[in-house]
């Protein structure tokens, strides 16, 4: 089959690779209909993930139809149209049964490199095999482990271009508002107007936030925020963000601040000599009201130093992290899509054949031509 492969730092190419095969009884094979670029792929693309191996297939947001099922798969049949959550989770461990599917104990495979904190989180498609990941969705076919847990049938009235965002971007946005505990009347600030930032803003509006403000530096993305999410837009190149947020929140500061600006540019190992990242996170901590909640969705294993811990303790903030929402939210998001309450297709600013995968990632990485997400069709 054809697949978009990592070829070393900064390089991608569509290659001929072996078709995936069933490896476990709970697996199924999906023929991909759509797959989307994601900010979580950029550290890998840039060569900042030392565990990556040349030839690995990228992509963790995809949708397709079932072509083969293992003997233990109960909820799916051949030819079902399904969206697959980015996280690979077993559904049986204590974390999964408690609803924390993104923390699954059994979602990675093989002899994997242990993170310094030793506990592996759920697996993921399009991540290095040495980190327990699975081949990605930018391909003609994908193996889906624990298919009954991670894949969901797409309602007939939701088309592919909308439903593909139910894989990871919309669950991540939903998680941003959920971890923030957004309730009616809240003022919510979101850093980052990419797909996840916009979907976080939309989720905060849906949960009844009184005022939602999105901070970014790209005017085209901010125009999209204003048009599609019901949130206000702030361009940090033109305004003092902290002063503006205080003014727009009655001097209190936002109740909930979500860093959805993507993986920070900080080092992936520590100690490091690379420049420090985490600008958005620091600003979120400084902006948040006393006793408020700061949520960081920035993925990657980056380290962020110069963290304003004094502001966290003085203001009594709750800081919560999430990287990849487990698939549990997908059915609800698909229902909202079916009722036109959640509209996502505008996020696919570019649609390309998979053969142009490298061009698509260049557009996405450099944010040129108003690119928010590129959606590929194999």
């Amino acid at each position, binding site marked *: 089959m054809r697949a978009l*492969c990592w070829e070393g730092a900064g390089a991608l*190419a569509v*290659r*001929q*690779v*072996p078709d*995936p*095969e069933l*490896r*476990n*009884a*709970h697996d199924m094979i999906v023929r991909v209909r759509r797959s989307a670029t994601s900010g979580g792929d950029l550290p890998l693309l840039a060569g900042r993930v030392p565990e990556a*191996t*040349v*030839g*690995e*297939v990228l992509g963790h947001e995809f949708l397709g139809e079932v072509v083969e099922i293992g003997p*233990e798969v109960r909820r799916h049949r051949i030819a079902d149209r399904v969206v697959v959550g980015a996280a690979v989770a*077993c*559904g*049986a*461990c*204590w974390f999964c*049964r408690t609803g924390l599917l993104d923390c699954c*104990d*059994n*979602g*990675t*495979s*093989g*002899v994997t490199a*242990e993170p*310094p904190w*030793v506990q592996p989180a759920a*697996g993921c498609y399009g991540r290095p*095999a040495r980190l*327990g990941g*699975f*081949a990605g969705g930018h391909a003609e076919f994908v*193996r889906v*482990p*624990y298919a009954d847990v991670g894949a969901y049938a797409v309602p007939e009235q939701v088309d592919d271009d909308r439903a593909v965002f139910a894989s990871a971007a919309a669950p991540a946005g939903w998680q941003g508002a959920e971890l923030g505990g957004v309730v009616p009347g809240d003022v919510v600030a979101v850093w980052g107007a990419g797909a996840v930032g916009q979907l976080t803003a939309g989720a905060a509006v849906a949960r009844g936030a009184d005022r939602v403000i999105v901070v970014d530096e790209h005017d085209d993305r901010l125009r999209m925020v204003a048009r599609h999410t019901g949130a206000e837009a702030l361009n940090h190149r033109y305004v003092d963000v902290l002063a503006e947020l205080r003014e727009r929140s009655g001097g209190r500061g936002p109740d909930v601040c979500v860093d959805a600006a993507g993986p920070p540019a900080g080092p992936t190992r*520590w100690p490091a000599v690379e420049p420090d990242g985490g600008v958005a996170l620091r600003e979120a901590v400084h902006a948040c009201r006393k006793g408020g909640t700061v949520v960081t969705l920035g993925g990657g294993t980056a380290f962020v130093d110069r963290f304003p811990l004094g502001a966290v303790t003085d203001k009594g903030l709750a800081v919560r992290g999430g990287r990849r929402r487990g698939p549990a939210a997908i059915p609800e998001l698909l229902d909202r899509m079916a009722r036109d309450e959640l509209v996502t297709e505008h996020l696919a600013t570019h649609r390309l054949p998979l053969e142009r995968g490298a061009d698509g990632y260049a557009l996405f990485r450099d944010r040129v031509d108003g690119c928010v997400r590129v959606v590929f069709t194999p």
Partner: protein
Amino acid sequence: MARTGWLAGSAVALAAVGARALVRRWPPRAGTDPWPGRWQVVTVAKRPEQVLPGGRWPEPLSRLDGAVEVRARAAPGGRGTELAVRPLGGEPTLPGPAAHLVGDEPGRYLRQVLRETKQLVETGEVLRADRSPLDRPEPAG
């Protein structure tokens, strides 16, 4: 090659620890545990009698019979069973998979065995990786 490298590395680490007080290092680095014989523990989301039916060790743990000791107890809060393993003392010549307990980083090896044991008990399978990336790239066609 990797194995002799680990062996030398852990011998050096042990010698250094013997010579002076343990300096806390962050982040923790693989192979620097000054006490490689410690208990490695995993919590399995099943009751002890399901994890060790009739007192028998589950697969793949049972392959280490004679090389490790095993303890199990009910985990608090209905979380299942705390399953603990540590190498038996000394550095005997061990057959088969148990050889890892001498040559490699034993703690890491035992964590991997416990992880597979847990997966098998909880999900009925050990999750297998995709085929190796090494046999993935083919000439562009």
